[in-house]
């Protein structure tokens, strides 16, 4: 299986453990990632809060790069990227004049016909049965709080993925791999996302609530599919503990970490040893 790959800046920056994890995992499953040639940043939060046109043009250029190579599907493992790509795709599909003008702006014809997949959708496309058949080490010791955050399921009209209030897609994958999951309240609450740098207090408060709720419902780890969620919950966990004077010691896994572990990969091969919070 070949799939176009838009890593986005985070996965080539300080979230390179996420890229290591999903590459190792997908290689085992015989999925070849074809990185989009000379991709550029999707604009993330900064573009859509400061300039509307730019927030469409930057993702549109990347859509065009994928389309021109004939790719029908593209993996964007960062939900910020995938949401921005899908939002641009939708805006272009609904407005032919905009599509033409954006094509001129980005110097490439953008059709907007490449489907953008998040990591959960890629695992679904591979198939739960195939995942199940490939399990070498069932996730017996894992009791996970699956955390979706904001942009995997929202806005629903843009991402059209799972149920935006009660998503279950990650739980289904984990359960297929022999893991347990908990019912809890904060699975679609926000962790503060890209405010880490500019407004840390917001992140500490939101992330503390998420960790506390997962703990209270008996989870022994959190599973995420977003680089920003991982930064806020893993890297910032020590700041959260210091600020609130209590210890969480909650390991935070990327979805591809737990899938990879079930497939028999070593934690080091998945980059789990590079997380901030160690395994219990």
């Amino acid at each position, binding site marked *: 299986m070949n799939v176009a790959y838009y890593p986005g800046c985070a996965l080539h920056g300080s979230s390179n453990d996420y890229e290591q994890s999903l590459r190792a995992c997908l290689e085992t499953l015989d999925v070849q990632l074809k990185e989009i040639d000379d991709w550029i940043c999707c604009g993330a939060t*900064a573009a859509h*809060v400061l300039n509307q046109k730019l927030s469409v043009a930057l993702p549109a250029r990347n859509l065009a790069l994928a389309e021109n190579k004939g790719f029908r599907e593209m993996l964007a493992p960062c939900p910020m990227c995938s949401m921005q790509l899908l939002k641009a795709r939708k805006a272009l599909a609904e407005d032919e004049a905009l599509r033409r003008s954006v094509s001129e702006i980005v110097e490439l014809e953008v059709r907007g016909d490449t489907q953008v997949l998040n990591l959960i959708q890629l695992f679904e496309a591979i198939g739960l049965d195939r995942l199940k058949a490939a399990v070498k080490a069932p996730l017996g010791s894992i009791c996970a709080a699956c955390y979706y*955050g904001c942009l995997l399921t929202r806005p629903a009209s843009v991402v059209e993925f799972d149920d935006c209030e009660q998503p279950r897609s990650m739980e289904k994958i984990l359960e297929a791999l022999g893991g347990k999951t908990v019912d809890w309240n904060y699975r679609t609450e926000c962790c503060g996302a890209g405010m880490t740098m500019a407004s840390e207090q917001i992140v500490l408060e939101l992330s503390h609530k998420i960790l506390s709720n997962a703990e209270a419902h008996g989870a022994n780890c959190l599973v995420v599919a977003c680089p920003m969620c991982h930064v806020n919950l893993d890297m910032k966990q020590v700041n959260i503990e210091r600020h609130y004077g209590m210890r969480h010691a909650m390991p935070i896994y990327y979805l591809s970490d737990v899938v990879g572990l079930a497939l028999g990969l070593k934690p080091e091969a998945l980059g789990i040893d590079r997380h901030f919070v160690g395994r219990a």
Partner: protein
Amino acid sequence: MAAGMDTPPSQLIRLLQLGHAETALRAQAIWQCVSCQTCTTRCPKSVDCAGVMDALRQLSFERGVATPEQRRIVLFQKAFLRNIRRNGRLNELELIGEFKFSTFLHGRSLSFLLKDAMLAPELMKRKKFHLVGEKAHDRAVVARIFARCMDNSLL
């Protein structure tokens, strides 16, 4: 998220309906908003509140932000866009340096400048720290896209 805002999304929408755009633009909330899309998702009247937040921020940015509290977040977003305009992709280290320096120039304390500095060795230990960031090859096209979308002097 709305719980920590001076003016929650529902009240911002009401202010706009009543024509009080200037009051809405002065609200801290428009820059506190993390774009989590919860308000848009749950609005019983299907108002795209998060989209309205974007529109308010874009207006506020073009006119010059109202309050010093709002400025730090705007400085961060501006530094982010300048970084992409220059490199095509985000260079985290440059962004942090630029943001810290510009907030320092705007009167933030030395402790804010140095805060998080201890993270560098921790990130390095985990091979998550890149002294030289990635760049897109065709950076000229990125600069042209920026020039066609916005007044470059705003950044």
